[in-house]
């Protein structure tokens, strides 16, 4: 580290940025990124079906299932991702008396939490279909399941696509917490690289950039979809 005389009295230590050394470790960071994506995908795979199911139950107020849906959604909606991850990794194995690998534990935690968001999304999507559509379908004599299948869900699905992308972005961000329980995702990998080369700031700057590029792109896709489908809607 070179010391610039003029800045000493300000208490600022001039920092000798060095990104080239981090870039040599880029493959390792990207490998972590791949693990992040794998974890996100598996979490979504859990969240989507559960969320769609409970979303429909909640919106349609299906008897007997409704209270379960409400409790489930409200609990996971207000739960804290990191706490859930710790719970699933440290506590769940004790409760079940089995071993859980980090991937499974974190998938369960993030999948369950995201399923609550997914359910809310589903409900919002169904609610966004105007009352007139429900009435027109009823007036034609369509029973409930036909109404849902052919009239409501296709319209709700189109509206949900951009919001679903935003949910995916949130899930990807949440998966960066998995490093806390030693799952080798990008932040965990970054920590290891940073300790190997003593360059935490540069490493995390690069990681931040990687995340930004990935998430920003996803966000743009979401926006593009939103606009595209909004036009069809008109």
């Amino acid at each position, binding site marked *: 580290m070179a010391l610039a005389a003029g800045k000493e009295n300000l208490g600022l230590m001039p*920092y000798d940025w060095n990104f080239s050394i981090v870039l040599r470790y880029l493959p390792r960071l990207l490998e972590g990124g791949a693990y992040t994506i794998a974890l996100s995908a598996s979490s979504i795979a859990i969240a989507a079906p559960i969320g769609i199911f409970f979303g429909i139950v909640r919106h349609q107020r299906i008897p007997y299932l409704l209270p379960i849906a409400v409790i489930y959604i409200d609990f996971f909606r207000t739960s*804290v991702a*990191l706490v859930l991850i710790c719970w699933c990794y440290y506590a769940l194995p004790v*409760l079940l008396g089995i071993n859980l690998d980090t991937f499974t534990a974190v998938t369960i935690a993030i999948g369950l939490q995201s399923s609550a968001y997914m359910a809310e999304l589903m409900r919002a999507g169904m609610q966004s279909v105007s009352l007139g559509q429900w009435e027109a379908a009823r007036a034609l004599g369509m029973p409930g399941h036909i109404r849902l299948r052919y009239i409501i869900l296709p319209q709700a699905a189109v509206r949900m696509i951009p919001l679903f992308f935003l949910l995916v972005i949130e899930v990807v*961000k949440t998966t960066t917490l998995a490093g806390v329980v030693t799952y080798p995702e990008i932040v965990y990998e970054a920590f290891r690289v940073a300790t190997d080369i003593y360059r935490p700031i540069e490493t995390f700057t690069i990681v931040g950039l990687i*995340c*930004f590029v990935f998430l920003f792109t996803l966000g743009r896709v979401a926006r593009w979809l939103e606009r595209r489908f909004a036009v069809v809607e008109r």
Partner: protein
Amino acid sequence: MAYIWNFHFLIQLGPLLLAGLVNTIKLWAVALSCGLAIGLVMGIFRTAPSAILRGIGAVYVESIRNTPGLVLLIWFFYALPILTGVQSSAWLAAVVSLSLYTGAYSAEIYRAGIASIEVGQWEAARALGFGYGNQMRYVVLPQALMRMIPAFGNRAIELAKATTLASTIAFGELLYTAKTIAEDQMRPLETYTVVTLIFTAILLPVSYACVWLERRVANSNGGTPRE
């Protein structure tokens, strides 16, 4: 094999957990106030007539929102001493990163709130001779703030959840305290279950309050709640 639950140690260590909770609340309160202030400025930037201000706002919001909170936190943890010369501390890194994080999201709330005010209101104020600042100050913001309250409530909940990130840089908030206790006592199940329940017990009522507020605001705006 049935697990034998034991909460006794947690009652003994209650004061420790409580201290952790107090730290969580401190962090939450400071980051929320700073975040809302930053958000107000950036939100106004984002709706400003000047393209430069709008650009600054957009860069800020997009860069923060598209970076995972954890990455942001760790980055500030390492970078703050270099950027400011201040001795790094977990508290400072947590406050700065969580404030900026909340700021970015609340900027969007302010922006949406300001955008939700009909053009007619701006025009009416302009017709009365108000300048841009006064239009914003006396006509637009007072109306917009009402509509934003539920969204801020949700933001506050998300921030409360995000404070747990600070456990990764060893800030002694609730989750970090729990982690130490769990390892110490070799009782992760009880400890983490209690922490989960503490968060639920606090956040669930707040979230219900937000839903209730949302409905009230929707009603007062003449909107009809569905079903």
